[in-house]
């Protein structure tokens, strides 16, 4: 399984799964394998293995070892430079200017290190980023920062913000239990009105899709720069019958260009629907 999270791409080993997903942080956990902690982010200034490496090693509880360039043959094909010290591996991506520190909780099997480290790739924040976690995949435009990630059984919610613009990706499941015998439109009315109020207009787009839109208030149009004002919103609800899921993408704040909005909506899908 390929995990794409906050700009980082990583191949999750077969028996492992993401246990924690946060901003710039992934923890992979699996039975009989060492836990893997990945910390990553943009490079603020060129990575120095002596200066920054010591700091990372100290934080990892490995202050007695040094970070050295890795001489394994497979590391020559990486997109960046690989440094190694005990259970810690650091990849410095040259072109995209990102740094990833991979810490194993115990000495890992060499095949695991190779497959995991060679799968790493970095997309900076100033480009479109693809996300793929659990069973959903989507893209976010340049500059949008993850502000909230909630993974509850039946409800995933990921929120992104860029100045006054907020994008929310919701994935609800199982759809057949949520909807019961209700048609999608009736459920949308109940759900959207409960979440955002009854002044949101719902526009059906067929039996499995609906759009919702709320016009900006006079106050917002006059004083859009004021913090705390209720942002106008629009979005789309899609019922994926085959996957038994409901996907909701909500755009809040200033109007997003139609081309960007279209790409956002078309890229939001479940991983199983893409496999078909």
């Amino acid at each position, binding site marked *: 399984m390929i995990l794409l999270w906050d700009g980082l791409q990583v191949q999750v080993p077969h028996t492992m799964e993401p246990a924690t997903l946060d901003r710039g942080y992934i923890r992979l956990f699996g039975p009989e394998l060492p836990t893997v902690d990945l910390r990553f982010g943009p490079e603020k200034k060129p990575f120095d293995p002596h200066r920054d490496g010591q700091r990372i090693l100290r934080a990892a509880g490995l202050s007695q070892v040094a970070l050295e360039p890795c001489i394994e043959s497979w590391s020559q094909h990486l997109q960046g430079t690989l440094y190694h010290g005990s259970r810690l591996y650091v990849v410095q991506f040259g072109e995209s200017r990102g740094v990833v520190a991979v810490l194993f909780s115990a000495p890992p099997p060499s095949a695991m290190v190779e497959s995991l480290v060679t799968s790493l790739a970095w997309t900076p924040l100033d480009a479109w980023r693809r996300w793929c976690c659990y069973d959903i995949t989507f893209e976010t435009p340049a500059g949008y920062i993850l502000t909230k990630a909630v993974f509850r059984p039946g409800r995933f919610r990921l929120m992104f913000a860029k100045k006054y613009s907020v994008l929310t990706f919701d994935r609800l499941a199982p759809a057949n*239990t949520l909807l019961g015998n209700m048609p999608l439109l009736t459920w949308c009315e109940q759900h959207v009105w409960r979440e955002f109020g009854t002044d949101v207009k719902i526009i059906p787009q067929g039996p499995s899709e609906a759009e919702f839109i709320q016009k900006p208030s006079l106050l917002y149009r006059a004083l859009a720069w004021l913090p705390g004002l209720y942002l106008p919103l629009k979005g789309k609800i899609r019922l994926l019958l085959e996957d*038994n899921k409901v996907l909701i993408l909500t755009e809040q704040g200033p109007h997003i260009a139609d081309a960007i909005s279209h790409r956002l909506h078309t890229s939001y899908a479940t991983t199983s629907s893409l496999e078909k």
Partner: protein
Amino acid sequence: MQPPPLSKNDALNATPVASADIQIQITDQGLVRIRYPITIKPWIARLLPRSTVRPFRTLELDSMGSFVWNHIDGIRSVEDLAGIVTHQYKCHPSEAEHAVAIFLRQLGQRGIVGLR
């Protein structure tokens, strides 16, 4: 002293068993309604006269809860139940494990099921 918490593997391999003190009803909609005696702290129970009948409460499960309940047979493990939920509701496996674990924990806190 409290027993140590179960590891994830042990918890998934445990078998949920329904309590003998509960009464089950099926509603017209096919949902499961469980009538269970409320659990009383041991020190309160000691103060009550022996003839006191423990009060009952009723819990009605939703369609997903009823589905899981109908598959608790004293043989299937938590992992088996999660697998059935994954297949039936097309959930992500870890999401189904989490959902079944929360459901069983809530029933366990009410004394409706125990783990064997």
